[in-house]
């Protein structure tokens, strides 16, 4: 019969090694989650290109491909709002003013979708918070 001494290291290793469960994720998971994101991003693209206000104006008219929205610069001081604001607050400003429409709740699905699309079109650009 082997002594405890020989078994102990093996036991210790077993005890210290975490079991293969918990937060691990697989390639499949990554693909699936990416697809979830893309679904929302595409919804945002549709919203961005539709007339969300009351005057037949759509976001892409002034911002083709989301250009000049500069999501990488938020939060920043926004003259229109008189304070340091976030992208979503500025989206609401556009909905209310140039589009003469109603604002979205900041955590609504539509707002998240719009943000997903706007940031997608600006992917790769380094963050520059505060930049005018």
């Amino acid at each position: 019969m082997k002594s405890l001494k020989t078994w102990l290291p093996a036991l210790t290793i077993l005890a210290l090694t975490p079991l293969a469960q918990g937060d691990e994720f697989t390639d499949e998971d990554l693909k699936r989650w990416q697809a979830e994101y893309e679904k929302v991003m595409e919804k945002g693209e549709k919203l961005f290109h539709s007339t969300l206000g009351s005057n037949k104006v759509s976001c892409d008219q002034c911002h083709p491909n989301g250009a000049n929205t500069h999501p990488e610069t938020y939060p920043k001081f926004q003259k229109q709002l008189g304070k340091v604001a976030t992208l979503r607050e500025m989206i609401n400003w556009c909905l209310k003013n140039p589009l003469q429409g109603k604002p979205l709740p900041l955590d609504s699905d539509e707002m998240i979708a719009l943000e997903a699309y706007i940031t997608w079109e600006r992917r790769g650009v380094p963050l520059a918070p505060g930049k005018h």
Partner: protein
Amino acid sequence: MAVNRRQFLQRMAATGVAATLPFSLVEISWGMGKKPTTEHESFTFAYISDSHLTHIKGNQFTRNFDQGLRKAIMEVNLMSPRPDFVIYGGDLAQLGKREELDHGLELMSALRPPVHWVTGEHDFYLDMGKFWEEKISPLYYSFDHKGVHFVVLNSILTYEDWIKRWSTPMERMLNMARLDNPQGSPFMVGESQLQWLKEDLAKYDVGTPVVVLSHSPLYKIFKPWNFWTDDAEKVQKLLQRFQRVTVLHGHVHQVLYNQIGNITFYAMMATAWPWPYPVSYVQKPNQVPKLTVFMNRADPFHERDGTGWDILDMDSGAITNHYQLWMNENRTVAFDFKLEHPVDLKYQAPDKRIPPQFHY
């Protein structure tokens, strides 16, 4: 003893070489920045473009776009001395609807000087230009004014199979209206107009100043947004032999100017809204003419920011463009006879730029 510039150009044209003068010859024949002698009387005209009047319902139109056009019209009427004529640069309507075009005609009827019309894709694609041709103007034509030959082109045509793809006129119009449409189709002048242009130009000698008016730029800037004309080189080739050619175009809703060989290109302002520069969309390779000093960056705060109209002086065959910018400093871009390309009279030098002119 120095070869006179006109003779030189004629020889160059005869040998088919693009009209780019060697710097030294310019100095010999003119001295520093002196203009060649004019063969025509100087004159001034106004340019209003890209109003995108949008019908909501009944008698309602998008307020912001109406306001822009009304302001331009009032200002043109207050010009002193009165301009010889006004060019309307296209995209009077947003979706080419009868209501929009009628509304635009009604507003434009207040203009006192005569109007020459250029059609834009937003006016055209709902009914393939039918209303425009019947009620407003021929789609392409030419006219002479005080010794200058003006040509108006319909440069927003496109490929037949794209046109046939759509099941309703409005679907076709909406797909052309969307600037960033991945299913878009590039603009073109097309073979029959090229043929017409060739015959039209044949009657004029190389010394005649030529001004071409089109909606889309007659050169290639950024294809994803149709800042583009597919057969631009063919048009440019037909214009090559003339001493002095200027192309005035709309469509881009921004300050843009360039020189390609003997042709100066000026973009006209929009009364409706400003557009980002292609450099602002980083997912695709992009470029903007190096010459252009960008307009002061649009601040969405004020509805008239980045919008306006243009006053154009034609003198010695070249055009000076006075950009009338409503919420920004006016800009003057003039043809520099020494450098042989347009320059902004205040901001051209890199150290003269101001922060609002930096776009990213």
